[in-house]
């Protein structure tokens, strides 16, 4: 672990406040615009909303000043902006479809910020989480497999990734990924030497010993189980990517990635050939515009999303002026297409840039923090957001087959939003440590 040469004397809390004000303007204007186009613009509502957003921002900001004064100043404004733009778009689709997802998402956002504040208050040092390595591992696996429990799991649109708790549907996979990141970080930081150094060298690449392959095989098996039994290609890919990414960061050995990817592709190819659900996803991806595939319905949603994005063009139709409601699940799985339509390529680029900023901040935190557990934790969380965004946006833009993941912070969904705010809390916590240590070095 090399020492970091960054020189940073300011905590950045003041820049954070400035960026937060910028995000506030975007969030409130977006909602006002949506209401205006739906002819429901009430200045009182906008004032209340603006006040509430400002309140949440200040609460988060003050918490950071108190308990994580050196935390990364860019993360929160970026996340707030994404969440606010998402709420505006969801509300916009509500007006078209006569639903009320927007209001629910606002409640989830409040809860999300509250959870983040709670975590920052309770977890004062991320290294304490290492104590719960195996607990987190078990919790993660159980959460992932919970939807398979008869009577508890419910199947929505072919995927069995939901459970029903007191009438509410919860997506435990969203929380499982965080538990697993903690588990992988704790496990890998302990075992990285064995995994990294031992093993035969073939073709210039050092391969791990067969007996060290156990954990990889177990994770692979779990990923396959999720793919086949929960029919959730996205979660399976996400779960496995997080593990491979963290394994690589821990061991610096590309052979692990090569072996892991080959395993996954073999499994994926097998599933694509044998599991009808997976196969139709591949078919829809490769021949989306084909008349037969389209009329069979398998690629209809994808293609409608493409039509929507195309109609947005470079600058978009304007918030509230497109027809995102023509795409099924415009407020959740396809919110990226909805935003692409109304904000155009320009808006989509801006959104992707916000994600890039968040992810790059996570890696910078990983590099900056001194303890191995923290490094792996931050990198793992960065990979989590990055891969999830790639899977969602890549699915909608036809880079990869479409899967049922949600765009972090943007898409409608309580589980997803709460889990991602939790990710932010952990990143802020580690970044506080990282930037504090760099201050110490420079001082």
């Amino acid at each position, binding site marked *: 672990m090399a020492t970091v040469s960054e020189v940073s004397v300011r905590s950045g809390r003041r820049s954070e406040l400035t960026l937060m004000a910028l995000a506030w303007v975007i969030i409130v204007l977006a909602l006002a615009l949506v209401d205006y186009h739906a002819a429901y613009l009430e200045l009182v509502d906008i004032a209340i909303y603006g006040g509430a957003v400002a309140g949440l921002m200040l609460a988060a900001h003050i918490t950071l000043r108190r308990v994580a004064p050196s935390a990364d100043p860019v993360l929160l404004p970026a996340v707030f902006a994404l969440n606010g733009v998402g709420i505006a778009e969801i509300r916009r689709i509500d007006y078209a479809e006569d639903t009320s997802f927007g209001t629910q998402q606002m409640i989830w956002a409040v809860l999300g910020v509250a959870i983040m504040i709670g975590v920052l208050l309770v977890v004062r040092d991320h290294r304490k989480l290492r104590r719960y390595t195996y607990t987190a591992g078990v919790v993660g696996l159980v959460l992932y497999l919970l939807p398979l429990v008869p009577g508890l799991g419910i199947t929505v649109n072919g995927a069995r990734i939901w459970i029903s708790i007191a009438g509410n549907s919860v997506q435990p996979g969203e929380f499982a990924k965080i538990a697993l990141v903690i588990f992988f970080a704790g496990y890998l930081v302990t075992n990285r030497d064995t995994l990294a150094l031992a093993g035969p060298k073939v073709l210039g690449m050092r391969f791990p010993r067969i007996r060290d392959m156990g954990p990889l095989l177990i994770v692979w098996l779990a990923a396959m189980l999720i793919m086949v039994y929960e029919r959730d290609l996205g979660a399976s890919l996400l779960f496995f990517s997080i593990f491979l990414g963290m394994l690589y960061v821990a061991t610096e050995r590309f052979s692990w990635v090569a072996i892991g990817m080959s395993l996954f592709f073999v499994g994926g190819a097998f599933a694509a050939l044998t599991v009808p659900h997976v196969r139709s996803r591949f078919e829809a991806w490769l021949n989306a515009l084909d008349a037969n595939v*389209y009329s069979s319905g398998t690629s209809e949603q994808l293609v409608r999303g493409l039509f929507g*994005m*195309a109609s947005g063009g470079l600058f978009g139709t304007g918030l509230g002026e497109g027809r995102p409601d023509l795409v099924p699940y415009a407020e959740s799985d396809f919110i990226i297409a909805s935003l692409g339509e109304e904000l155009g*390529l320009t808006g*989509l680029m801006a959104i992707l840039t916000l994600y890039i900023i968040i992810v790059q901040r996570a890696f910078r935190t*990983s590099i900056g923090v001194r303890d191995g557990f923290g490094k792996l934790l931050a990198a793992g969380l960065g990979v989590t957001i990055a891969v999830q965004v790639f899977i969602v946006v890549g699915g909608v833009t036809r880079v990869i087959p479409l899967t049922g993941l949600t765009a972090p912070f943007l898409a409608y969904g309580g589980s997803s939003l709460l889990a991602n705010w939790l990710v932010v809390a952990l990143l802020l916590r580690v970044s506080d440590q990282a930037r504090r240590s760099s201050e110490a070095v420079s001082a």
Partner: protein
Amino acid sequence: MNEPARRVSVVVLILFLALMAAASWIQVVNEETLSQDPRNVRTLYREYGNFRGPLVVDGESVVWSEPSNDSFNYQRTYTDGSLYAAATGFYSIVYGRSGLEQTENELLNGSADSLFWTRLGNLFSGEQQQGASVELTLKSSLQQVAAEQLGDQRGAVIALAPETGEILAMVTSPTYDPALLAGHDSSVVNENYQSLLNQDDGPLINRAIAGDTYPPGSTFKLIDAAAALEAGYEPDTELYAPTELDLPQSSNTIGNYGGEACSSDDSMTLEDALRISCNTAFADLGMTLQWQVIQRKAESFGWTDKIDVPLSVTASRLPEDPDEAQTAMSAIGQYDVRSTPLQMAMVAAAIANDGTLMKPYLVDSVRAPDLQVIDVTEPEVYSTPMTRSDANKLTDMMVTVVDDGTGSAARIDGVEVAGKTGTAETGQDTPPHAWFVSFAPADDPVVAVAVVVENGGSMGSEATGGRIAAPIAKAVMQEAIRLDGEGDL
């Protein structure tokens, strides 16, 4: 672990670049293709979902967009849809547009260049694109009178303002209700359209300006007369007018209506020949003048030109290189001579306007959504087919047609009416088409009218232009004169 973390962050960056490339591919490079995909209902919704401007007659919207509670946002709505269908055309999510809905589409949907400032304003205020309103030259009462008079007979009526070229009335029969095609349920629209198509009498055809066009019959004698006047004939110049005219190089003969003699001595003046519509006199005149002379005259009135009013008008036809016999037949508006009712109305209007033909038009003005007038059609000279003195001579001749000739059914008390009848043969077994073209008042015309009733209308083979078409023209002229008296024309 810093180095691999850095590498992973680079890989992640590459993944995001791939996403950005894919988004650019969809939203910019491939945008055209995707937007034009027939499965993309969005383009349709955008076109049909905007507020589309109304079509206005006499200050009242006859076609407008009513907000609707479906995915199209607006429902095209009509008052007296079938009365104005010939001009407005239809606006359908399945079959597209026709009539002014098509030709004025960019103004109506707001995308026209002349609406640039309006759009710019909308951009800043965030308002939806709105269309302009298009005001027609039609007069509702004239339109109504013409439609009532024509009734359920097949045919067309068209009325022009001679001094400007404004189309004051344009009626075609049978017609259809555009509301049948404006619905948002495509299967219903489909069914309605098919049943309109399957109707034998072609309700979707605008007979006034398009369709098969008609042989003009004796109304074409106005062209012969105009050509003769230019060639130095006078109204009292004697013409050869036998009871039967032998056609050169053929065994056929031309006779007069009912086989009657035009005169006792096989000779009559040009004026009298027009008054009683003597076929043999004009057939012989045609051969004497030669076809090129008549052809040039017809062309100066607009024959063979394709004009837009802005509805596109089928060009009226003339025969190519007719021999003498064919020239004789053509001179009385038979053989290969074809005319739209609009073309004949233009002939009447040019004679009425001292020999100057004004370009006919249907759009009076265009108003931006904020009601500011952004365009007014200025009357435009189309051609000058006759000199003032020739036109006045021909007017006097046409007055005798109504006063004391075949067109007496068009007489109006206290008003001098100039007219010409036509009874065009359509074949051995089918009744003739009845024509009447006229203008009034003869000394200071306010309206020029052409009426055609297909296959004799309700009179069948008994029909003549004078009997069945002239009364229709008379009613239209009377209404126009009344409107003019009230200052509404």
